[in-house]
């Protein structure tokens, strides 16, 4: 039914898709998995018409639709949900379901404006169809509620209803279960099977939840770095070495200085609930999270995408406020403290993706890191010296624009910038992302040295790269802490099971 051949897409200097091909047969449920940034959403954009591929062909029901604009593909029968964008804000459920039936209206736009007789009958018909659809999805009592007022799980349901309302034959679902708890996911899996029966739709689904995909899909494709890595039956894919490596990465050996015995509790997190969106009905990202970080230890926080790792460190650093729960640092409650003050207290975050200031020089970037003590010229100069000693690669690049540095150099700059504030607790989000093992090794050795100089380090990682470095590991899954233990005691095979093999509880 759908055939994608050899599509490549490049934008923003990045090759998002490289020669990707896949096919979906009528009536199938197909899964598309892969780590973050693999190009899955870009692939959906190409299929649904929001992006034209640089090369390659997209064929739908035998017809070449590669150049067809998005609304025309919707007319042809390709429907889609979006990650976090889904519906028309500020409108009711009914309005959304009516809007989704745009193509089935049966009258032209000008006729509608002029109020010709045919429009009244058509509108009534559309309204009846919307009611019927809502009934099937259990949304009947909510037709006149604004979608912004709906809790997250119900919102997602309306999204699916809207996609079905477009009368699509092929429905593309982009991360439909993000933010759902285990029970909801089961319900979703069952619903999907039923829709296939009732509506006779073909489904292609982007998912991070590999076990769910294994349960529901007939066929699975795995993408990484814009390329098709593997495809096949779900079970076969789960044990495929390339897929495992894509998700988990590889361990990076580091020669460590002897670490002191982890001391007193330094950071205590209790009952943290964090949601994105409106308080009370947003998407829950962290659920009742409690843990502690001990003084001078090296901790690594593991989790797949959507697990909530970045949200956790962002909340610790003060960029996000939790809805419930508390955070205490060195005995002091910092839950309500703004980010700037936390820096002063000694908590610094090196954010995901480096986030250097690309138009400013290396020296300027470092100088900004010392913002709290910016008036002290001597302090700033000393700090810059120290960072350049730790990272010799930056020593001669003081005047160079940060945006022109290589990935590894930017990572070093980002860490150096964080060091300028003389942190006592250093949080680093995905230090190894996009770096070669050799450079990652250098980065970890530096982190080790920093730790030996009296800084507690918490790393956030998606794969296993930091296992050698850390003392202790915690695993986050869907916003909940599911495992913690010392790295020496942890069975690495067990980790793999947790990531790719744990079945969805029924």
């Amino acid at each position: 039914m759908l055939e994608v051949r050899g599509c490549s897409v490049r934008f923003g200097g990045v090759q998002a898709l490289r020669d990707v091909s896949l096919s979906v047969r009528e009536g199938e449920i197909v899964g598309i998995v892969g780590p973050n940034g693999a190009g899955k959403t870009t692939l959906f954009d190409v299929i649904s018409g929001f992006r034209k591929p640089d090369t390659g062909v997209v064929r739908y029901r035998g017809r070449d639709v590669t150049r067809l604009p998005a609304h025309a593909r919707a007319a042809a029968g390709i429907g889609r949900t979006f990650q976090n964008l889904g519906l028309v804000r500020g409108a009711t459920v009914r309005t959304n379901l009516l809007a989704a039936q745009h193509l089935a209206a049966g009258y032209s736009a000008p006729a509608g404006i002029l109020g010709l007789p045919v429009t009244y009958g058509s509108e009534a018909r559309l309204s009846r169809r919307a009611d019927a659809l809502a009934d099937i999805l259990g949304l009947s009592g909510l037709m006149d509620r604004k979608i912004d007022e709906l809790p997250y799980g119900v919102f997602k349901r309306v999204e699916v209803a809207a996609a079905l309302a477009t009368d699509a034959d092929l429905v593309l679902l982009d991360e439909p279960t993000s933010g759902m708890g285990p029970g909801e996911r089961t319900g979703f899996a069952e619903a999907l099977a039923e829709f296939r029966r009732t509506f006779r739709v073909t489904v292609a689904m982007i998912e991070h939840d590999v076990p769910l995909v294994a349960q529901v899909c007939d066929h699975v494709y795995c993408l990484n770095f814009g390329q098709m890595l593997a495809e096949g039956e779900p079970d076969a894919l789960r044990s495929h070495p390339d897929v495992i490596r894509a998700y988990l990465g590889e361990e990076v050996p580091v020669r460590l200085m002897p670490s002191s015995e982890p001391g007193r509790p330094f950071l205590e997190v209790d009952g943290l609930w964090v949601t994105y969106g409106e308080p009370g009905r947003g998407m829950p990202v962290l659920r009742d999270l409690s843990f502690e970080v001990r003084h001078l230890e090296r901790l690594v926080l593991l989790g797949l995408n959507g697990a909530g790792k970045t949200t956790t460190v962002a909340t610790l650093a003060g960029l996000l406020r939790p809805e419930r729960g508390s955070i205490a640092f060195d005995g002091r409650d910092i839950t309500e403290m703004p980010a700037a003050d936390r820096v002063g207290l000694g908590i610094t975050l090196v954010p995901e993706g480096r986030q250097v200031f690309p138009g400013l020089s290396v020296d300027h970037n470092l100088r900004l890191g010392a913002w709290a003590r910016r008036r002290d010229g001597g302090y700033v100069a000393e700090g810059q010296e120290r960072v350049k000693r730790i990272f010799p690669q930056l020593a001669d690049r003081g005047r160079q624009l940060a945006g022109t540095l290589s990935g590894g150099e930017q990572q070093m700059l980002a860490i150096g910038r964080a060091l300028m504030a003389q942190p006592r607790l250093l949080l680093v989000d995905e230090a190894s992302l996009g770096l070669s093992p050799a450079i990652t090794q250098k980065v970890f050795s530096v982190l080790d040295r920093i730790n030996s100089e009296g800084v507690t380090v918490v790393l956030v990682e998606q794969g296993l790269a930091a296992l050698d470095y850390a003392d202790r590991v915690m695993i986050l899954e869907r916003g909940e802490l599911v495992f913690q233990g010392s790295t020496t005691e942890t069975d690495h095979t067990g980790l793999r099971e947790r990531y790719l093999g744990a079945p969805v509880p029924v």
Partner: protein
Amino acid sequence: MTTTLTGRDSVVVAPPADRAVGRPSAAGWAARGAVGAALFGLVFLFPLTRSGVDVNIYTEAVIYAIIGLSLNVLLGYAGQISLGHQAFVGVGAFTSAYMVTVHEQNFVAAVGIAVAVGAAQALILGLVSLRVSGLYFALVSLAYGSMAEEWLFNISSLTGGGSGQPAPKPSAFATDHRYYYLCLAFLALVLFLDWRLTSTKTGRALLALRSNPRVAESFGASVKRYTLLAFVVSGAFASLAGALLAHNTTRVVSSQFQFQLALLFVIMTVVGGLRSRVGVVVGSAFFSLASYLFDHLHLARAVGALPFLPNLSPDIAPLVLGPLLLLFTLTRHPGGMAEFLDPFQRWLLGERAKPRRTVTIDLREPRGSNGA
């Protein structure tokens, strides 16, 4: 709106403090009837008791209501910031005057042509807006309005140059009073068209387009097509208003269309309440009548009583109070007058608040289960 945030798999959706449809009592109907009659009297009967000069001012208020509705289509429904709207109105005014004076067409034909020309001009601007992102389009529309005022409306052959173009009223509606009712009829027409627009697929497409263009496309609505349609409708309404305006003042001059007028239009629509027909109509009428009201309600005396401030004459008062109202609306009450006008309209049409049921949805079930 309360929702229980649990980690559980069902959610309780309590009703918002919103209204729901109920039926008023007999006394309720009586009250509504009285208010309705009063409003009817104000709009339809009161002008009969006033002189032609006053009625002229009321007619302008009606025309401004049409202008407000036209800007509402662009700014409120389609989300396009047009700061040159006075040019749309001016095009309609000059075209109609030109047709009547130079080509000796009758009123109906002239207005019809004015609407067509206005729509075409808006379409061109719409094509530009497709290429230029939102904020920048505001600049373009501002520059366009300025250009229209300084150049377009000064082309002597078309616009009569400095002294302007005469635009007599149609013979059938030659008195001020009759012309007022004619404009009311046109306002009713525009209200009808606007109502149908929002109730059918076009309105929903625009809503989707404004909130989330990708979603609009995925529903099958072409962003390009509907944006242009919004421009065309807006331009048509605006130039209709312009034509009516021309014949109301019986002479059109380019200096009537300065760029401050465009900002006034934005003020009256925003303060009235975007996307609310009632709000826009009342807001536009209010601003149009502002000097008149200020004068007749003797507010100048109130301000004059304040020490140290020079007299605030009725002409100047709106210039100060208008922007103040705009800023107040934007920062405190973004819904504008509609915040109290919409509930009033609903009341008038017979709705009454009634408690609503709580809905429970079990998310584990594919079909959910609805409990009361």
